[in-house]
């Protein structure tokens, strides 16, 4: 994100925006305190008592998944680069079919609280849980850092302040809020925060979408024509090639990104744990169906928002939209369709969309913190350190300490990370999820011979391959926006490692399995298969 910030709000606007931000904080904290009194058991804390309906969990999945990066980022990217900005959202949506067809129901039936539970079902606990917890924490921290650094800039942008001190305060404030949500509210509180956010986000985008379409007589072609003309690029604005794949390396880079997006979603730990919050596999399926509908509708609306901003808002070089890498596009579009700068309607819509973006950030960081804290407490503390002999009470103390620690680490890393270009972190999180987690999950469910060595090999292999390739890519060194701009060790040309690291993850799983003589894990394969497909012996909802 560009360090150049453009104040969107001033005077009365700012007071209105701050009021709405505070309203979001008050409502979400209210939910959290309510939920905290209902957390009685580990199943309540980790999985919200497994009592959410398909519709509720579908909304929560949407709330967990549609980050500020996709709300402001995708529409902004469309506003600046036209058609290519739309490509991210297609990968993000199609990916849900992997979750629906191969993962959601089987995982719901065979796991309990964390991603590792499902692998540990038939593998040796200590090595497999250590591996799965490592990748859970790496993926979640990457994602969390991207969200928190984004939060600092976004809130600064939305409130119209650009001083580094204020941005640091915002990061600390968001960090403290997420620690409170997670330590008190657990999964139940976090889920309700995500549900509220999803409803706000859908209503907000729907409102702006309708107002934009109304300006073009509800004619998509007319909107596209106006956007293409205003962009100054003409028809090329509506065709692929403005952002991705300008040369051969760029084309392979885009292919690599596309693969990571479509295969990564079903390996994101904070998404996987959402399937545990429903009472049965059938409800988990329904929740994914709702999520596909909501997320699909949302991305279709961002298409209108993006082209709407291109047509109605100034996106020329040096404009607020351009200097904020597109993040200001949706808020400014809201202002424009509300009546323009200086009008009451414009001010209200601008403040509203800003508050929706703020709620979005809070819900996503809460989900990520909860997932990594759960993995630390349930996988590392209870099963690796205490070998499964920890009392539920002590586990519940540890998970809260873990949430506090993750929050503190995230704040400490996010403040210095602000000067870096962190846009690659989300793509890297998807690449690790696709390279490390997905192979292990799929082999465990569908390949009887798969064993402990194979599981650890695929997780560590995919994880290390993805991270190492990014370090030795142009993201790591050699260009102006690199982590080390003045060093030159970028021997791997692609910014997105998926094209190479995903096959490495699968290959490590196969080779690791075949070189090991271990057949112990095959003994419980029948049991895992029966349980995952029929739900026989699966965890039930807790009764209240």
């Amino acid at each position, binding site marked *: 994100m560009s360090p150049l910030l453009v104040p969107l709000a001033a005077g009365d606007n700012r007071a209105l925006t701050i009021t709405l931000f505070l309203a979001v904080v008050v409502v979400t904290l209210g939910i959290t305190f309510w939920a905290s009194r209902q957390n009685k058991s580990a199943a309540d804390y980790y999985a919200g008592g497994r009592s959410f309906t398909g519709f509720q969990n579908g909304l929560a999945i949407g709330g967990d998944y549609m980050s500020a990066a996709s709300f402001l980022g995708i529409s902004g990217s469309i506003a600046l680069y036209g*058609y290519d900005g*739309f*490509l991210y959202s*297609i*990968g993000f*949506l*199609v990916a*849900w*079919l*992997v979750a*629906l*067809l*191969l993962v959601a129901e089987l995982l719901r039936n065979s796991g*309990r609280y964390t991603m590792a539970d499902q692998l540990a079902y038939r593998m040796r606990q200590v090595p497999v849980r250590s591996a799965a917890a490592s990748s859970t924490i790496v993926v979640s921290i990457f994602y969390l850092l991207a969200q928190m650094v984004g939060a600092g800039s976004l809130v600064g942008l939305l409130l119209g302040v650009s001083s580094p001190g204020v941005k640091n305060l915002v990061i600390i404030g968001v960090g403290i809020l997420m620690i409170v949500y997670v330590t008190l509210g657990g999964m139940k509180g976090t889920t309700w925060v995500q549900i509220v956010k999803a409803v706000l986000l859908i209503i907000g985008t729907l409102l702006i979408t309708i107002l934009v379409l109304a300006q073009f007589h509800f*004619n*998509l*072609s*007319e909107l*596209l*024509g106006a956007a*293409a003309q205003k962009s100054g690029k003409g*028809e090329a604005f*509506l*065709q*692929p*090639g403005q952002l*991705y*794949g300008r040369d051969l390396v760029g*084309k392979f880079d*885009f*292919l690599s990104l*596309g*693969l990571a997006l*479509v295969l990564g979603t079903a390996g994101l730990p904070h998404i996987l744990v959402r399937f545990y919050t429903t009472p049965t*596999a*059938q409800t988990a*399926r*329904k929740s*994914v*169906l709702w999520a*596909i*509908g909501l997320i*699909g509708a949302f*991305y*279709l609306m961002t298409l209108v928002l993006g082209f709407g901003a291109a047509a109605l808002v100034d996106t020329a070089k040096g404009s607020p939209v351009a200097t904020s890498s597109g993040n200001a596009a949706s808020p400014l579009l809201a202002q424009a369709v509300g009546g323009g700068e200086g009008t009451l309607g414009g001010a209200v819509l601008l403040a509203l969309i800003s508050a929706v973006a703020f709620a979005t950030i809070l819900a996503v960081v809460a989900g990520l913190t909860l997932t990594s804290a759960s993995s630390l407490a349930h996988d590392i503390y209870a099963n690796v350190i205490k070998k*499964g*002999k920890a009392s539920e009470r002590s586990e519940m103390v540890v998970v809260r300490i873990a949430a506090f620690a993750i929050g503190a680490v995230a704040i400490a890393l996010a403040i210095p990370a602000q000067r870096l270009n962190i846009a690659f972190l989300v793509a890297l999180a998807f690449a690790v999820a696709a390279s490390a987690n997905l192979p292990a999950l799929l082999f465990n469910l569908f390949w009887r011979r798969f064993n402990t060595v194979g599981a650890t090999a695929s997780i560590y292999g995919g994880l290390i391959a993805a991270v190492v390739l990014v370090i030795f890519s142009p993201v790591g060194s050699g260009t102006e926006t690199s982590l080390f701009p003045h060093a030159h060790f970028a021997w791997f040309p692609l910014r997105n490692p998926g094209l190479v690291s995903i096959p490495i993850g699968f290959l490590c799983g196969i080779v690791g399995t075949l070189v090991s003589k271990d057949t112990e894990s095959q003994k419980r394969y*029948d*049991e895992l*298969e*029966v*349980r995952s*497909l*029929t*739900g*026989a*012996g699966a*965890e039930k909802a807790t009764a209240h």
Partner: protein
Amino acid sequence: MARTRRGTAARSRGRSDSQSYSDLAADPGFAELKRRYRRFAIPATIAFLVWYVTYVVCNNWARGFMGTRVVGHINVALVFGLLQFLSTFVIAYLYARYAGRRLDPLSTQLRERFESETGR
């Protein structure tokens, strides 16, 4: 931890979980459930992945085709992208219908037998 608790409950009824799991695994009904599930899930997964990769590849290497106008300012690239949304919705709908009709009745039957055997 939970497994020990479950084991105790099952023993009091004279049957262990693992016995019941092996019985179900050997049951022709379970083999049928597994066959039905895989018959839908695997071809559907291959189909949508190929369809999606084709779309990504066309964005890279078939730009002339993607830029062709269909109607007004709407070109092949946009229609292809919107078709990815449509195919996702359709596959999700078809799977939900298939699972409700062909998978759920079988899995419920098997699960209920397991539960009555193990006393849960």
